[in-house]
């Protein structure tokens, strides 16, 4: 049995996006890439309803309104 440390490391599936668009994608790596896309998709879904993002949004909004006041002298 191979030791874990001597096993070849799985290639980062993102490298597929670097291949020419007509090159064939290996099935296993394509599966891993769509898995990464799915994780990113869910991260985005969570961010859209996240309280943390909402709190930061309030701060950004306040700063932008403040900048408007300075720029336009409202």
């Amino acid at each position, binding site marked *: 049995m191979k030791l874990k440390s001597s096993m070849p490391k799985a290639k980062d599936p993102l490298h597929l996006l670097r291949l020419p668009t007509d090159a064939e994608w290996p099935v296993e790596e394509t599966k891993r890439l769509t898995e990464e896309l799915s994780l990113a*998709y869910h991260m985005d879904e969570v961010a859209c309803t996240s309280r943390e993002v909402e709190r930061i949004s309030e701060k950004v909004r306040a700063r932008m309104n403040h900048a408007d006041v300075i720029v336009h002298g409202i």
Partner: protein
Amino acid sequence: MAAPFPTTSLNLLTKLKQSADDDNWNVSWKRFLELYHEPLTSSTRACYRFHTNGHEPAYGFIEEVVAQVVTDFFSKSQFRYDASKGRLRSYLRLLVNSRVIDLLRKEKPINQQELPEHYEETVPAETNHETESFHRSLLATLVEDLRNSIPMRQFEIFERVKLKHQHASFVAEDLGITRAMVDRNIYKALTALRQIASQPEYQQEFYES
């Protein structure tokens, strides 16, 4: 005067990278925050640790930095992003680093030594966590670009099967189409995704250093 209406549809990443040259921002800052708050948070932590000999920032500190970076990025002031000078992510890290140092100076956290007046604003090397976070945000941007560039039905099939992990047969039955049509739509969506990802904006953000 309103900005001229674009003659070709630009992808989201292109819009983000070109918006500083336009009269109007093409991407809402809220959407940008949703997509990029994770790498911005990760970079804030990394920069804070770097400048404070390994201390952890408070949540409030992180939120202040991220809010200031987003405001700066969309402010059209001296913080304009110039795509010819490098990657968007490098620029964002530079902004984060400056804001972390500003806030450390301003707030002087109780457990931190004061930064010297002429402190060198060295940007720390990108951590693995930052790289992974940036990649995830880029992939989310890619999915959004895909949604905007293929037929709605095709995206729905791709989304349900590949992103939400619904069974292809279930989706076929639910939509009243054959399983082969589901597979064909997924193939087409993946082909479109590859074409979007092959654009220089994505290639630069994913692979160039």
